[in-house]
């Protein structure tokens, strides 16, 4: 992974200053720009961790059928048409007729057009699993899930569950009646004065079954042995529809039959993996050959709202086939996009990738890049940051590096983390507006380059990878992109990763201090320019430092 820039969303902490980048938890506060939203009302960046999500539509990812939300629940968030997944490889299953009349294979992908023999079954084109192995066949090639639904409804777990409910319901009703009949007499007299005391007295007044019977039972009950089979909680005994002893006799409940099967097991693949069977709450067979086809889970389209002001940030079009959005306030339309590159690495990358393809193994290639294209301790490297302006107005950008405080935590590695010095241009510079080609020359005067910068820019343009004359400063401007150079000086004992937080503040003209809602992102150009400043944090990750000792060892080897 090359050097990258991530953007901060302040939702995880109360302060707007991001956590120091060497903390592991800090990585969760930073996101790639394309994952972020921008709320115009709050003038703030929002991320996928803080927005509130609403489902705006359900669809099956396989057949793209839009499922009305009313039937989603009954269908258990699964496609209720013909979409099934292979239980072994999660591939989509296709419906095939059982006995193709002609000599050809007859395994067609489109089941509707198939005119086959009536017992249809599901077939996996990848692992060749077919549903007749588990005794699932269909009379018609359509509405398969509906045909299977009956099977599911009569599943032992749901039947047992309902029986349990029927077992408990009268008891709970009776007890709530009894408690409400004993207590209200007292609470009535108090005019419902205090619900807490009422509740407390209700709790006290209620009988604890076994305890109430304590004395008589110890005297008579135990000696007579009448309570041999009764529990003392005086709960009517629940009789299972199918108890575990009977269930395991068929070899599914973890009893002796299963243990025997396991003891004689020949190949691991005969046993289904945990995730293939862990959603079954009923004791099910362990064996792979008993797995049932899975209905494909539905997906949903989400619309997202700002957590603070509840304005919609993103709203997809309803149709499942469409990938467009009705409302789309993404941060990429508001914040300048920043990319970072290490020129010396880019240069090396060509060589290495060529060698890596020859060698063919990934790990060795990575090692190589670390030593040659990497960042070695005790050296100084230039880096380039390219800022792209998405706005229709020019922006003035000021960059500043957040001060690194070396954490004195006793973590060994982290504590020894040496300061690496970052130097980046601190003077504001401009980034030209995003514009159509014919508008582009408009704001030429805004460039206002001083001489060095111009020179740097020229030099950068001429020999881009090696800007030796000047590395810190504005290197290049083209269209709505400005490239600035920075430099990182690594300490001799440096190790770890070069990661630093950078505050980006940009000023743009805006005629409307409170921009109207909608996704019209261009603050239109008017006569009276009013400037606004927005600042956000980023973390710049230049990559891992190659420690000095390794480096010296290498050198020794070379000598």
């Amino acid at each position, binding site marked *: 992974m090359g050097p990258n820039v991530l953007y901060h969303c302040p939702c*995880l*902490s109360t302060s707007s200053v991001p956590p120091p980048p060497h903390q592991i938890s800090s990585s*969760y506060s930073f996101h790639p720009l394309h994952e972020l939203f921008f709320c115009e009302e709050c003038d703030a960046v929002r991320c996928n*961790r803080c927005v*509130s*999500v609403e*489902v705006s539509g*359900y669809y099956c990812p396989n057949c793209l059928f839009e499922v009305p939300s009313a039937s989603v629940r009954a269908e258990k968030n699964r496609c209720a048409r013909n979409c099934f997944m292979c239980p072994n490889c999660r591939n989509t299953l296709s419906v095939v007729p059982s006995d193709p009349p002609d000599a050809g294979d007859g395994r067609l992908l489109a089941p509707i057009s198939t005119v086959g023999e009536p017992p249809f079954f599901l077939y996996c084109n990848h692992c060749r699993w077919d549903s007749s192995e588990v005794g699932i066949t269909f009379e018609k090639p359509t509405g398969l899930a509906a045909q299977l639904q009956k099977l599911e409804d009569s599943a032992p777990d*749901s039947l*047992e*569950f*309902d029986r*349990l*409910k*029927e077992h*408990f*319901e009268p*008891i*709970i009703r009776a*007890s*709530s009646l*009894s408690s409400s009949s004993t207590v209200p007499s007292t609470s009535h007299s108090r005019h419902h004065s205090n619900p807490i005391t009422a509740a407390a007295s209700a709790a006290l007044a209620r*009988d*604890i*079954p*076994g305890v109430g019977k304590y004395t008589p039972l110890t005297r008579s009950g135990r000696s007579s042995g009448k309570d*041999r*089979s*009764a529990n*003392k*909680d*005086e*709960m*009517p005994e*629940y009789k*299972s529809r199918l*108890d*575990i*002893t009977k269930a395991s006799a068929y070899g*599914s409940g*973890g*009893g*002796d039959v299963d*243990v025997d099967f*396991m*003891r*004689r*097991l*020949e190949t691991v693949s005969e046993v289904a*993996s*945990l995730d293939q069977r862990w*959603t*079954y*709450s*009923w*004791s099910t067979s*362990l064996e792979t050959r008993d797995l049932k086809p899975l209905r494909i889970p539905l997906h949903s389209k989400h619309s997202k709202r700002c957590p603070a002001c509840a304005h919609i940030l993103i709203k997809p079009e309803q149709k499942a086939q469409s990938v467009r959005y009705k409302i789309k306030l993404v941060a990429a339309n508001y914040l300048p996009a920043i990319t970072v590159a290490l020129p010396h690495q880019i240069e090396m990358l060509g060589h290495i990738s060529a060698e890596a393809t020859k*060698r063919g193994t990934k790990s060795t290639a990575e090692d190589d890049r670390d030593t040659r294209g990497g960042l070695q301790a005790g050296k100084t490297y230039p880096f380039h940051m390219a800022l792209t302006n998405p706005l229709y107005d020019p922006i003035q950008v000021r960059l500043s590096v957040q001060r690194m405080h070396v954490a004195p*935590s006793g*973590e060994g590695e982290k504590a020894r983390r040496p300061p690496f010095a970052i130097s980046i241009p601190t003077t504001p510079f401009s980034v030209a507006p995003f514009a159509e080609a014919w508008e582009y020359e408009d704001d030429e005067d805004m460039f206002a380059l001083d001489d060095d910068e111009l020179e740097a820019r020229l030099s950068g343009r001429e020999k881009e990878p090696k800007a030796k004359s000047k590395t810190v400063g504005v290197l290049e401007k083209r269209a709505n992109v400005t490239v600035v150079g920075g430099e990182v000086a690594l300490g001799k004992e440096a190790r770890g990763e070069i990661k630093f937080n950078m505050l980006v503040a940009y000023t743009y003209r805006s005629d409307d201090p409170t921009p109207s809602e909608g996704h019209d992102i261009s603050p239109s150009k008017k006569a009276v320019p009013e400037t606004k400043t927005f600042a956000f944090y980023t973390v710049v990750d230049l990559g891992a430092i190659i420690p000095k000792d390794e480096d010296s060892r290498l050198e020794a080897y070379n000598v």
Partner: protein
Amino acid sequence: MFKGRFSVPPETPRSKTSFNPSTPVTSRITNSQAQSSPHYTTTRRHSLYGVEDRIVIDPGSLVWKVGFSGEGRPREVFYPNAKSILKGLWDLNRASDATQRAEEGRILDIKLEQSLRSVFHDSLLTDPKARKVIIIENPLLPLHIKEALARTLFENLQVPSVSFASSHLLSLLAVGRITGLVLDCGYLESVALPIFAARPLFSQLRSTPLAGQRFLSHLRSLLLLFGTYVAPTSPGANLPQASRSMRVPPEVLTNEVLEQIKTRCCFVGESLAPVEAVDHGPTPDDSVATSSDIDMPPSSDPAPSESEFSFAGRESGVSSQQDSSEFSVVSTPRMGGSGRTEERSGNENQAQALAEMYMRHSTATDLSLRVEPPASMANSSSLGYGTIIIPGWIRERTAEVLFVGGDVDEGSLAEVILDALLKVPVDLRKTLASSILIVGGTSMLLGFIPRLHVELLRALAPQTPPSSVSPNTSTTEPDKSSQTRPRYDHYASLRPLIPYISVVNNPSPPPPLSDRAKNNAGKAPAFSPATMAWVGGSLAGALKIGGTEVSREKWDEADPEREDPDASVAESTVRRAVAGSHGQSPPSRNVLPDWTRIPLASGAPPAASIATSSPMRTSGARARVGA
């Protein structure tokens, strides 16, 4: 926690009838079947969009189960720590350093948030603002995690209400009971909790860290010592399998591979016969003497797959490994290499003796599992997958670690149950002993529950010879265990209960010794032990008894600064420190109900607990404080 909501059944008239339970119950059932198809009773109650169904979340440290109440199975089960499964979201330990702890807290918050958001948005596809949530909590769930869960649910997802319900009680509901002794054998720890009439007797709770995590680490070390790894073939040199065999490199045993072995290969064999264990106890010289014939499988071994990888191949695998033994960190206690016998340290000798004893008591087949070769060992010439050969006895006997107690803080599973039973008031013992329920993911191991039953009986057996209770305690400290046990017959007072002991979800119960055992053992519905708590949560949600609700208004109202007057000084300072170290996150609020916040009863503790509580385990406090 259920005290408030789960009201108690009426007691007067039924006590008579319940003595003869068969008739009324059966009649009730025939009625219910005559009514209507049970399916419609569920669907009828739901409105069109079914918003009143609650979300039931069983957040384990390793595996989460989520779904809607009123359904018989969870909608989705997943590892919350998807990047590195088997690294739970939390652990029994917390960092002692304040800054590290704060960092841990932040990461936990973030991961919980991630998981909870994905529950609503990816798994259940539902709007959190319209859904009440039931969180199934283990009684030893640390408070800071509970707070973090509630904080995320209320503040990030803005759910209308959250209620916490005890996993043990819910498991009991799932088997149609409100009284029982529940052992939840999960990933981090196993917790036994007696529950009477829907009231969890929290003060009688017992726990042990012998659970899934311990199983896995044991499995890992056994495989490292006794497993065989066959490197992938090279295209040029067509080496025979024998010369490619080697000891299992640690990098091969990733968490994923271990989990796979645990869930697909391992099971729990019958208990080791006590007589043999005494005879061939782990005496090192014995094992060395017999090591030659241990190499060959016992003649009774029915395993046909042994022939697949010949023993000759294995021998040469050992010899090839002998050459490279200087590279390996652990000097191998693998059988066969007789030349190295002298070099073995005592510890390995014990491991070897243990292995031999297990081998003798196992008839399971060896299995081979294809694994991806580790990146460090991959060279350009090797192709395809490597193979781990898992000896059958490892598959069968790894679980022994759960049935062998360690020191006083790590009682075996049977001991934990019996200790809890010892603390229970005498009148309830018979009732609870006859309705033991085993739940939790680790108890999904095949044969686990029958074996635990046997272990319970054995721990209670009269004149227990010291070493036969735990034939391989000697792996840790052979002398100590033999000293502590005979001096004091710990479970003497429980011995009369032997005929009554019955595990309600035992799939193959032994022949009952009493009517009561007969009526209870194996009579639970065949829900799988791992999902039982979830099913109970779903049931509680459907019956609207899902624990004390905390509404969002209440959460928002709660003043974060206020201290709980009930909390003990020590606890509140700890909690304050925890909350403070969270940094940006608001300090803990005391709106969440928790049994540790209930003031203790002022009366004298029951006599039983005084008598037996001498080596007090303060596991509850330990886990809560997180020391």
